[in-house]
């Protein structure tokens, strides 16, 4: 009994210790999972984070498209510093999505703090940056953050654009930012690094998941298709339909033209099927139980994350119905 009496707390402590060690090891392992994958030219992709972060590394500065969770920023910068000691100069946010902009503030704080500064308690510093880091998004990202319900707690931007496109030159290459007005949301941007021949697509492409058409944030199925068609028009494949222009998706693996084509094709075909049933007088419930996407569910639906089949079809239905009204 003596042994048992003392053994029990010992075992309990051992278990707790083991759990702590395990958690520490898991955390270390997760951190170790971060990596920089060279895509092409001056473009790298941060891997292992909650979101794919596109990183342009050149002889002038570091440019980001989207940012990871703040807890990943330090390790990401360590990886980048193995390649470059240049300052961070530009962050482009592809959409009002907490996963894609969580690290904006942390990255802005990496910049120069010699003068000026944002007002206390102000989340958004519009009208030019004071740290040498410009944080850019389409104006609708800002509008939705202020004017609509969303799950973004804070947003750090220094400037927005409202024109169809915005471009600048950094690290010896032209960088074109295109607004995709009604795709995933109404504030989506895609970023084309012209010399490197890489396009950062945000959540307009997520391999193995149905597209997230966020109707409440201004997304539409036809706008999504138009955005993918626009992207395809920018892309030039390498010999025999492979390589050439690469795309960095918001999540998942890097793709080329055919990957975008297959994604676009799926979206067009499902859209047409839903529209056909609407035209025949079917309501949403009838469409949902009709098995319209049996041929795509094993590839894009199920336990892969992203919208479920029902959510995907419902978004298309709502988008088409609203378009008819």
């Amino acid at each position, binding site marked *: 009994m003596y042994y048992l009496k003392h053994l029990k707390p010992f075992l309990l402590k051992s278990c707790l210790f083991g759990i702590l060690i395990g958690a520490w090891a898991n955390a270390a392992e997760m951190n170790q999972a971060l990596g920089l994958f060279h895509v092409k030219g001056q473009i790298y992709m941060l891997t292992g984070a909650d979101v794919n972060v596109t990183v342009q590394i050149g002889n002038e500065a570091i440019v980001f498209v989207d940012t990871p969770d703040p807890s990943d920023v330090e390790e990401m910068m360590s990886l980048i510093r193995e390649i470059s000691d240049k300052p961070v100069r530009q962050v482009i946010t592809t959409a009002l999505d907490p996963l894609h902009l969580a690290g904006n503030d942390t990255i802005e704080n990496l910049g120069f703090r010699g003068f000026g500064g944002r007002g206390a308690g102000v989340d958004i510093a519009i009208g030019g940056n004071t740290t040498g880091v410009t944080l850019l998004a389409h104006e609708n990202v800002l509008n939705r953050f202020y004017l609509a319900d969303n799950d973004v707690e804070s947003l750090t931007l220094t400037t927005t654009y409202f024109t169809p496109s915005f471009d600048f030159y950094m690290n010896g290459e032209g960088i074109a930012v295109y607004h995709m007005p009604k795709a995933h949301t109404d504030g989506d941007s895609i970023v084309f690094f012209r010399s490197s021949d890489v396009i950062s697509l945000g959540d307009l492409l997520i391999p193995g998941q149905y597209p997230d058409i966020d109707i409440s944030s201004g997304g539409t199925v036809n706008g999504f298709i138009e955005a993918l068609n626009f992207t395809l028009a920018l892309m030039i494949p390498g010999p*025999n339909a492979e390589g050439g222009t690469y795309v960095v998706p918001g999540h998942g693996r890097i793709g080329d033209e055919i990957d975008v*084509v297959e994604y676009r094709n799926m979206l067009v075909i499902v859209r047409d099927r839903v529209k056909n049933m609407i035209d025949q007088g079917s309501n949403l419930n009838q469409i949902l139980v009709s098995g319209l996407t049996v041929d795509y569910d094993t590839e894009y639906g199920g336990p892969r994350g992203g919208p479920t089949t029902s959510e995907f079809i419902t978004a298309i239905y709502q988008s088409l119905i609203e378009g008819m009204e």
Partner: protein
Amino acid sequence: MIPRNIPLFNLFAFIAALLLSSGLLAQEIDFSGDWRPLYHEDLPERSPGPNLADYTGMPINDAARMRGDSYNPNRISVVSEYICRQHGGDYSMRGAADLNISRIIDPLTQQAIAFKTRIGFMGMERTIWLNNPERPPEIAPHTFQGFSTGSFDGNMLNILTTDFKESYLRRNGLAASSERTATEHWVMHGDYLTVVTVIDDPVFLEEPMVRSQTWVRDPSARQSPSSCVPLQELPVNALGQIVPHFLPGQNPWIMEFAERYRIPYSATRGGIETMYPEYMDIMEKPPGNAEFCTEECE
């Protein structure tokens, strides 16, 4: 003890060194050379191409079947990105084109580290690594030919290929997913090369699909350079669809194959239940109306 064993040890060492230096211990077969495909297997599918909605003998699932039923062959003319598309690495061996195989030798060890293949359709080039390299990370782009590693089992080369792009199991719209893997077995008998391909696709197959192809060595075979340019063959929207497809239940060609060859429609739909001899016991009778049968009726 030791002095008496030294000569024996030296003898073994000498023999081992002799074998190693001459490569006699290696089991590697050299498949290098030029090969022409033989079409005694599956000619209609491989050369002119398969009929629409012919899924006979394929272990496909409902997803693949519906994908095939919705396929409109105009798609490869309207979607210009498909014009220069290669076959997938697991399908390329079935094409109607010559094959060149070369062996890559490590100059330091003089051991083969890879075979390179080139097939004379869309310049399909593939490397089969023999030195057990790491597979690409999950986020790396997939390719049509995939990533192949090989190892010898006696005289047979076993190859595992992963990291495919989405492609097709058959050129009638039966899709092959980017999650599939292919295991190949290469065996050479004199001047004949037999390749058995086993495709495992969790997205579109109920069980692995097995196919085989045979090649004959032809030292005179030569290939042309690939020069495909992806020109638009039809105006986009000429057919009212930017991605031609048939809506569910509206494919007008769905019965054509069954009627032409007088095969029960249900047997043409594929699936594992239709693949094995037991299926003969439950298979529907062929259509009685012989007027439908226009080819291979007897």
